[in-house]
């Protein structure tokens, strides 16, 4: 099975974020980056399928040169090779534009299965995978908790709301968006890190490609205005706890 894993590099989870001078994105200068966590689970699901059924795992990333570090990490964990669509200015593309770049880069590949995380931890639109499936004319399923290969098809377990699930049968080739927690994430081994250095990364420059006019644009990014008055209780742990108990007893009357 040839498996493509869409992987995005995003600001690390505990980053302190500030808006940049334009007010339309964050200041990335002091930010550390990492693999988008849901995509890490997509990679894990892809690697486990390959280990069981053979084939190849190819990482596909759209991002600036710094994203190469996350690609190397994925190669160190066991992906066979990668495609890096290099784009310095991700902001000039909307979701449809990014998915179009991915579709174009996949033209020579003929994959059996494409996996992405269900959403990114930065923009969180949760739709790049589905849009890519539509552009490629593939069937898809989202928020997947389990993948099982059958003959020429796959059987997946899709998460629904409030503890419900459904099983779906999908013919291959297909695209799945993977839910976090589908499997335990592996660490890269020393041997894996060594091997990753020699693995192929196909560079696809996006600089020359004219972007279609975006259908949506971010006009401003800002710290949310508080809608609720939160009383922060000060002092050391003991003092704060005592104040809280007083509030709960006499203010909210829940004690």
């Amino acid at each position: 099975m040839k498996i493509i894993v869409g992987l995005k590099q995003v600001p690390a989870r505990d980053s302190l974020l500030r808006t940049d001078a334009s007010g339309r994105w964050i200041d990335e200068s002091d930010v550390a980056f990492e693999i988008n966590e849901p995509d890490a689970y997509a990679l894990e699901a892809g690697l486990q399928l390959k280990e069981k059924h053979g084939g190849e795992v190819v990482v596909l990333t759209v991002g600036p040169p710094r994203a190469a570090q996350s690609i190397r990490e994925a190669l160190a964990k066991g992906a066979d090779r990668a495609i890096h669509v290099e784009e310095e200015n991700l902001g000039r593309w909307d979701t449809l534009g990014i998915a179009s770049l991915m579709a174009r880069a996949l033209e020579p590949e003929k994959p059996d299965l494409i996996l992405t995380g269900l959403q990114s931890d930065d923009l969180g639109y949760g739709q790049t995978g589905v849009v890519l499936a539509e552009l490629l004319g593939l069937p898809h399923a989202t928020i997947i908790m389990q993948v099982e290969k059958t003959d020429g098809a796959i059987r997946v377990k899709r998460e629904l709301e409030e503890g419900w699930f459904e099983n779906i049968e999908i013919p291959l080739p297909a695209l799945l968006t993977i839910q976090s927690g589908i499997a335990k994430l592996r660490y890269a081994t020393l041997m894996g890190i060594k091997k990753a250095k020699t693995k192929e990364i196909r560079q696809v420059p996006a600089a020359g490609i004219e972007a279609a006019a975006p259908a949506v644009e971010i006009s401003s990014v800002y710290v949310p205005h508080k809608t609720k008055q939160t009383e922060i209780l000060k002092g050391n742990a003991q003092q704060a706890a005592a104040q809280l108990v007083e509030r709960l007893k006499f203010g909210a009357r829940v004690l």
Partner: protein
Amino acid sequence: MSILVILEQRGGAWNRMSFETLAAAVQMGRELGQPVSAAVAGDRVAALAAEAAAYKVEKVYAIEHELLARYTADAYTAALEQLIRSVGPDLVLLPHTYRVRDFAPKLATRFGRVLVSDAVGHRIEDGRPVLVRQLFQGKLNADLRFTSAAPNFASIQAGAYRADSLEAGVGVVESFVPELSASAIRTKPGEPFRESQRGLDLTAAGIIVSVGRGIKEKDNIHVVEQLAQALGGELAASRPICDNGWLPMERQVGSSGQTVAPKLYVAVGISGAIQHLVGMKGSKTIVAINKDENAPIFEVADYGIVGDLFEVVPALVEEIRKAKG
């Protein structure tokens, strides 16, 4: 100029988020001076459509076809694409449900558009809607504008608008029969199921103490468990805790777990990602204990303590025992 709301039903029962989205549409419609219509799809939905038409809407389209009896992305996308091409709305609003997440990006792509997903609010600028949505797991907000001609698409987050603001009205039910063929439906869904009989109904609890990533490891859970015991409440958790198997799935609060609204909700070491907040923000009194003063959980908290949970929680247990005598 018009707004079309796609309502959601499964097996004849509404998804309650449908009416929150309808409320959002009615509010936008009033501000923009645009009429609002709605649509509901399934094999037999005339009765549901009539129910929806009792609100202040112009029309409710009953999209009926036997191939819509069970949800598939292929059939729903095709049916809604046909309705939208026929009705020609400026703005299509959908509830941000798991089903909408599955088909709405595909639907928008058919029109060369991008869905603005999971919007939490809006305002009108220059006669056009500006949608607000969260970025970076709720740490920042963004304003988004549509830069394309109609139709545009947006989905609305659970709890962002109040369904009880809807006023009664007299809408017209109109039948719409899409052209669908079984051979164009590529996926075969099975019957929805639950993993195990869920023994625990968190929605009945008056007090809930919930634990998140901040607890660091399974062996520390007892720290928070003691707080639940001292308060006489149920112990619950955010998703990563249940994913790791540190607490059973039946104790998960959030979009994929239970939605609760107790009189007291204490969030310990939970940053407050959107997926968790939608499951608990209706609680009467919310307390947050977190070491990061910028954690989004403080956005919804009535009382907050910024500090190390391993110091704060034991102190709190002691104070509660004292107060209870």
